[in-house]
């Protein structure tokens, strides 16, 4: 095409609002990351192996209103959730650093705060597909299978609340951990591997420490066991460990805060690698 056929044309009009730009940013990035073949594969595996059997079980009256039912689901799903986070979220900030496209975002009147907030929201929404959506689906089916009984719903609404709290807690933790590692390591492969290694290795380390000194506080080194402890509290189940259930909660909170600071540091404090 001969470019001289076209002239540059000025534009006059009103710019869109901040909220509009934010929704463009979130929807664009969200579509990109959840459309990847690996993301779809892990989702299919998780739903086929763990969620679908529970959906069928929930069709049995009263089965879906048992807190152990949901607690064990999160327990079984944990590794799949980590795998999904590694596959979907590892490049969330690392890719922008690697191809240097972060410069494009930050020179478009799209502030750093908005960039970080947008990235966290994208991760939260993407991870919710595997941490919160299964719970909502299974609970809804259990409710429908129980003839939509209002009294049953009233009695067992706390289970839905506990599940939502558990799902949100896992999602927030993984969003901050993934974003933190992604900005720290700047490479999606390393981030994915680190996410998986932290989750799996922490369990092995806790196991080894426990076998050495027999103190069950050693299980606090394991990410998975900390979530298990928090879950047992939320679902009103007996604790498998002797220590107070505030510790695992604080450990997870501490990691989330540290990782959030990591993102803040790399995007705000450190000179951008542009």
């Amino acid at each position, binding site marked *: *095409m*001969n*470019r001289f*056929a*076209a*002239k*540059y*044309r*000025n*534009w006059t*009009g*009103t*710019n*869109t609002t*901040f909220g509009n*730009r934010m929704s*463009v*940013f979130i929807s*664009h990035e969200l579509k990109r990351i959840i459309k990847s073949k690996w993301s779809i594969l892990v989702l299919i595996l998780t739903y086929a192996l763990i969620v679908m059997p529970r959906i069928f079980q929930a069709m049995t009256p009263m089965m879906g209103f048992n807190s152990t039912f949901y607690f064990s689901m999160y327990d079984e799903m944990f590794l799949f959730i980590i795998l999904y986070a590694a596959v979907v979220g590892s490049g969330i900030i690392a*890719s922008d650093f690697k*191809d*240097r*496209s972060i*410069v*494009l*975002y*930050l*020179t*478009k*009147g*799209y*502030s750093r705060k908005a960039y970080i907030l947008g990235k966290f929201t994208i991760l939260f929404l993407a991870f919710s597909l595997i941490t919160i959506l299964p719970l909502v689906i299974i609970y809804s089916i259990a409710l429908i299978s129980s003839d939509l009984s209002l009294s049953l719903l009233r009695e067992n609404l706390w289970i839905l609340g506990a599940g939502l709290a558990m799902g949100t807690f896992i999602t927030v933790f993984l969003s901050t951990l993934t974003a933190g590692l992604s900005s720290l390591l700047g490479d999606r492969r390393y981030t994915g591997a680190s996410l998986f290694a932290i989750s799996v290795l922490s369990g092995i380390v806790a196991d080894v420490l426990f076998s050495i000194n027999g103190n069950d506080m050693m299980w606090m080194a394991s990410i998975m066991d900390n979530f298990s402890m928090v879950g047992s509290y939320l679902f009103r189940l007996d604790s498998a460990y002797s220590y107070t259930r505030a510790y695992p909660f604080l450990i997870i909170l501490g990691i989330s805060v540290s990782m959030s600071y990591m993102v803040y540091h790399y995007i705000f404090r450190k*000179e*951008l690698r*542009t």
Partner: protein
Amino acid sequence: MKEVGDFAFVTDNLSKSYGMVKAVNDLTVSVSKGSIGLLGPNGAGKSTLIKMLLGLIQPTSGQFRITKVEGSGSYLDKVGYMPEHDCLPGSISAVGLVSYMGQLSGLPSDVSMERTHEILDFVGMDESRYRNIKSFSTGMKQKVKLCQAMVHDPDLVFFDEPTNGLDPEGRKEMLELIRDVSKSGKTIILSTHLLPDVEYVCKDVMIMNNGELLLYDSLKETLGSTNLAVRVRGDQERFIELMSGRGFEARVMGSNILIGGNATSKEVYEAARDSMVQVRYLSHHSRTLEDLFLQLVGDSNE
């Protein structure tokens, strides 16, 4: 600090240090609208200045001001930036990326798509606009970078080494595009170390070295004065001293002595007679940007 008013941007004692190194040193300047060439050798502080103005890096001290459009959230809504380095995600088409950048800059979705096609037409990108960027040549990537910088119709555009890595034909085309953008009433800042690029596109020139501004003036005014190039036999130093003493700028450039200040040949011959040297060569010499650049940078390095 001066108000921005009719200026493109204003800086006041703007500095950026990396440890002991001052990348930009107490820069105070009010840059008028138009087409400005930002020249300097590598490490002069050009890119650092641009990155500070774009908010990518924080100044160590000082401040700057760029006109903000009424009703917009950030001054960057009316600023465009074409980075020097590769910054394009590979797994998206040119149309997808430019339109997305338009929307992030505040264009409504339909307007963004319309302008994306217009600007891609403007740079002469054909059906390849629908291909993923990773399959593009350097020239095509440069065009996409220009498009994403212009899609939201900014008033001020920074071009950081836009002709880097381009073949002669691609370079000429890129410079023509930038010149066309400038003619449409935009203020452009062309940062480069290629002097002919600035001469081709810009009306004003800023020269930086070691983080300091050496010159900011109209290119026409700066290069307008005519020099005399003289070669003499005898005590050259004495001749230069005498010419300088009579109020003419005289300095050695290669085998010639360049005499500025609109000196006439008569004055040169008089000085030659008085300093007992023989004039072997005399001609008019128009000062080029290269002469000026080498002189200013050379002086500042001494």
